[in-house]
């Protein structure tokens, strides 16, 4: 669980962290780089303040934590956690719901495209191997006729 990402040391968070059942030590600044670009994209300065980025990360992780716990509360009736549980949670937030649907369908499209590519690739490879085999046999037959030039 504690694979260092980018060589950052794990530190247990004090104060705002929620006591977890599994002693999970959250690394600081896991999302720092991405958040900087994100905040700039949404309207912050090109170089957001480090303390603002850190606070943003804390709030977002807390938000995600609460989201997951609520989804688990819903999903626990069925057992496993599922995507539908999350979609149910944000059902009244239309922008988020629509965005999620868009992302999911894009992901599905990519999956289909990749599958089709692999099937095509497989067909091409088989066709190539058959041709290669034919050429090899033809070459060997030719050699036998004229003898090796060594």
């Amino acid at each position, binding site marked *: *669980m504690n*694979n260092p*990402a980018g060589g950052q040391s794990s530190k247990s968070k004090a104060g705002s962290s929620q006591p*977890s*059942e*599994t002693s*999970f030590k959250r690394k600081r600044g*896991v*999302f720092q780089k*991405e*958040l900087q*670009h*994100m*905040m*700039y*994209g*949404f*309207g*912050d*300065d*090109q*170089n*957001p*303040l480090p*303390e*603002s980025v850190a*606070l*943003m990360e804390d*709030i*977002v*992780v807390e*938000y*995600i*934590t*609460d*989201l*997951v*716990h*609520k989804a*688990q*509360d819903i999903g626990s009736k069925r057992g*496993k*956690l*599922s*995507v539908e549980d*999350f*979609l149910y*949670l*944000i059902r009244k*937030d239309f*922008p*988020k719901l629509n*965005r*999620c649907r868009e*992302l*999911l369908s894009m*992901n599905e499209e990519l999956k289909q495209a990749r599958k089709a590519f692999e099937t095509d690739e497989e067909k091409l490879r088989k066709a190539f191997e058959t041709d290669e085999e034919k050429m090899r046999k033809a070459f060997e037959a030719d050699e036998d006729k004229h003898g090796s030039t060594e």
Partner: protein
Amino acid sequence: MAKMQAILSRFSEEQMSRYESFRRAGFQKSNMKRLLGSISGTPKISMPMTIVVSGIAKMFVGELVETARIVMTERKESGPIRPCHIREAYRKLKLEGKVPKRSVSRLFR
């Protein structure tokens, strides 16, 4: 589609740069997967779930940043966003019901 093209063609360099960051920025899938796994306690987190939560979280960041900018305008302040603005924005979003509330009943699991 055409409307978007028309808008984009009128962007200044700064606007285009910001828009590029807006489009490209996202939570790294591996980090998000790890986070979701540790919160839920389940080792296997599906790709669609990672994608969905990343999308929701990114939009949430957007709501916070935009609201923080509104707070700054109200206070007639400028420059980079400061933590106090984010805290105020967070408070506002909670009042609007845009933040999931922690249910107390969790204590009795």
